[in-house]
């Protein structure tokens, strides 16, 4: 089981994973979510316009839209900074 992540971290994981089209099963497996929670996250991201869906051979595919760029960039930049600029743990 994946360790405890915040909703913002899960959004980021879904959005970076869906840079290329992915099925619902792909997403919940990769991000280690149960289907109920997975559905909620995907609905939220669709509602925000961060994800779009298309059909391929009767399967619904999720893909990250350009609207998500700001969120993904801000998250990546700030999390990297958070690690780089904080004190280091050394024995």
């Amino acid at each position, binding site marked *: 089981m994946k360790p*405890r992540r915040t909703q*913002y971290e899960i959004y980021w994981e879904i959005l970076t994973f869906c840079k290329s089209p992915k099925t619902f099963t792909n997403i919940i497996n990769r991000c280690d979510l149960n289907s109920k929670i997975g559905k909620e996250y995907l609905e939220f991201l669709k509602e*925000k316009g961060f994800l779009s869906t298309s059909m391929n051979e009767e399967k619904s595919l999720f893909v990250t839209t350009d609207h998500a760029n700001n*969120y993904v960039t801000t998250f990546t930049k700030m*999390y990297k900074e*958070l*690690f*780089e600029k904080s004190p280091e743990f050394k*024995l």
Partner: protein
Amino acid sequence: MATDISNKFQRELKSFYALSVMNIIFGGIGMALGISAGVQNVLALVEARSLLLYQFALTLIGFLAFGISLRWLLSSVEILDGATDIKDDYEKSKTKLDDENATSLVVKMMAYYRDNRSTIRRLTLLSKIAGICFFVNGIILLINTTNNIILGASLSSILLMVIGTILNLVVGASGIIIPRSFRKYSSVWEYRLEQSTRVERELDKELEGQLK
């Protein structure tokens, strides 16, 4: 920049991995010493066929140290398990540590700390208690060894007692030093978690701006 962050990951992961392995080693030695002290003193009590207070106290300390060391060892294994997973993830992505991979590692390390916060606190406390038990046992053994030297005991028995005393004192000292390193690790990650709430506020703004 990519090399800087990669080096920082490497140093931090190496330090934490070493700390976790050290914990397992000392937890294991502690367990062995505890059970051996407990059993030896129980045998001495059985042989004497009476309740010797001194031996009884050593038996209690021995078994208590054994129990605490067992918990210490189990918690250490839990911690090492997660540390190994993160180290493996780093090894896999270190040749191509782009922004996405680096961020993914930070997310994993942060989630790992959130998940293991209470185990680390427990470990800090357990190793400290075990350390005190071994230190007390070491001091008692030191007094005994000195007495035996004065009374002219055989060289082999004195040698065994000296080894036992050193081992107890070393495990005792490790039980006091290791929690300090864990506290250092916790304070670094607590600071990062605190900073992440500021990041979350920014991300909230990003999400609110996208309301359809």
